[in-house]
């Protein structure tokens, strides 16, 4: 069987690097969720919600990686990639909400 044709011919491997960057971000969301678990004895059971939110964001990134890679590869091949505004806004919103809930927990 012959190998599959590459989806793009970019020697800079832009889609690969961007998808890996999302993967690192996904792991950091998982890490933050794990650190939030340490609050469980101090602040009560609701902190599990913070961990679960981090898991949801990390899972969402994981599940969209394949689609992201094919969209960016096709975009590089066509010389046109639409800026991913929703992904940027949702990721920022997730960090802001986690941070505000964390501040509320510490200050309460």
């Amino acid at each position, binding site marked *: 069987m012959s190998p599959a044709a590459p989806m793009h011919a*970019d020697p*800079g491997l*832009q*889609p690969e*690097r*961007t998808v890996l*960057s*999302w993967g*690192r*971000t996904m792991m*950091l*969301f998982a*890490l*933050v969720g794990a*650190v*939030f678990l*340490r*609050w469980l004895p*101090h602040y009560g059971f609701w902190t599990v919600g913070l961990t679960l939110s981090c898991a949801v964001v990390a899972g969402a990134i994981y599940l969209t990686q394949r689609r992201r890679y094919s969209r*960016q590869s096709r*975009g*590089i091949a066509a*010389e*046109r*990639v*639409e*800026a*991913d*505004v*929703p*992904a*940027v*806004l949702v*990721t*920022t919103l997730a*960090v*802001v909400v*986690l*941070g*505000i809930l*964390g*501040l509320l927990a*510490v*200050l309460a």
Partner: protein
Amino acid sequence: MSQDPLSEDPPRGRLSSRLLAHGQEPDPRFTLANERTFLAWIRTALAFLAGGVAVEAFAADVFADPYRTVVSVLTISVGLLISVGAAMRWLNVERSMRLGHPLPMPLIIPLLSFASGVAMAVVIVLVVLD
């Protein structure tokens, strides 16, 4: 005769049509590089968030209570500011590239330097005083 593929404007998402209304699509490599830079800033923000959460959770016997809360609140706040700054910078850079303008100055870099310096100074003072 077939149409020039570059002359037609494929439909864009609602958010990107609204927030990135003007100019032309930049080189896709630059768009992806901008996205990776945003993600690097978001990871920096997440590291500050994790640091603030960890100070509050792990350092109970290292720092006395009011100091620990102050350090934790400051660290989480820096994470918040950096995440908002990351999104704003991503949007400003994308707009500049679409219009062919020079890229804006990164205001979050002095913020990050200042915050890191303050955080280290506070920790040194607290450890020395302890």
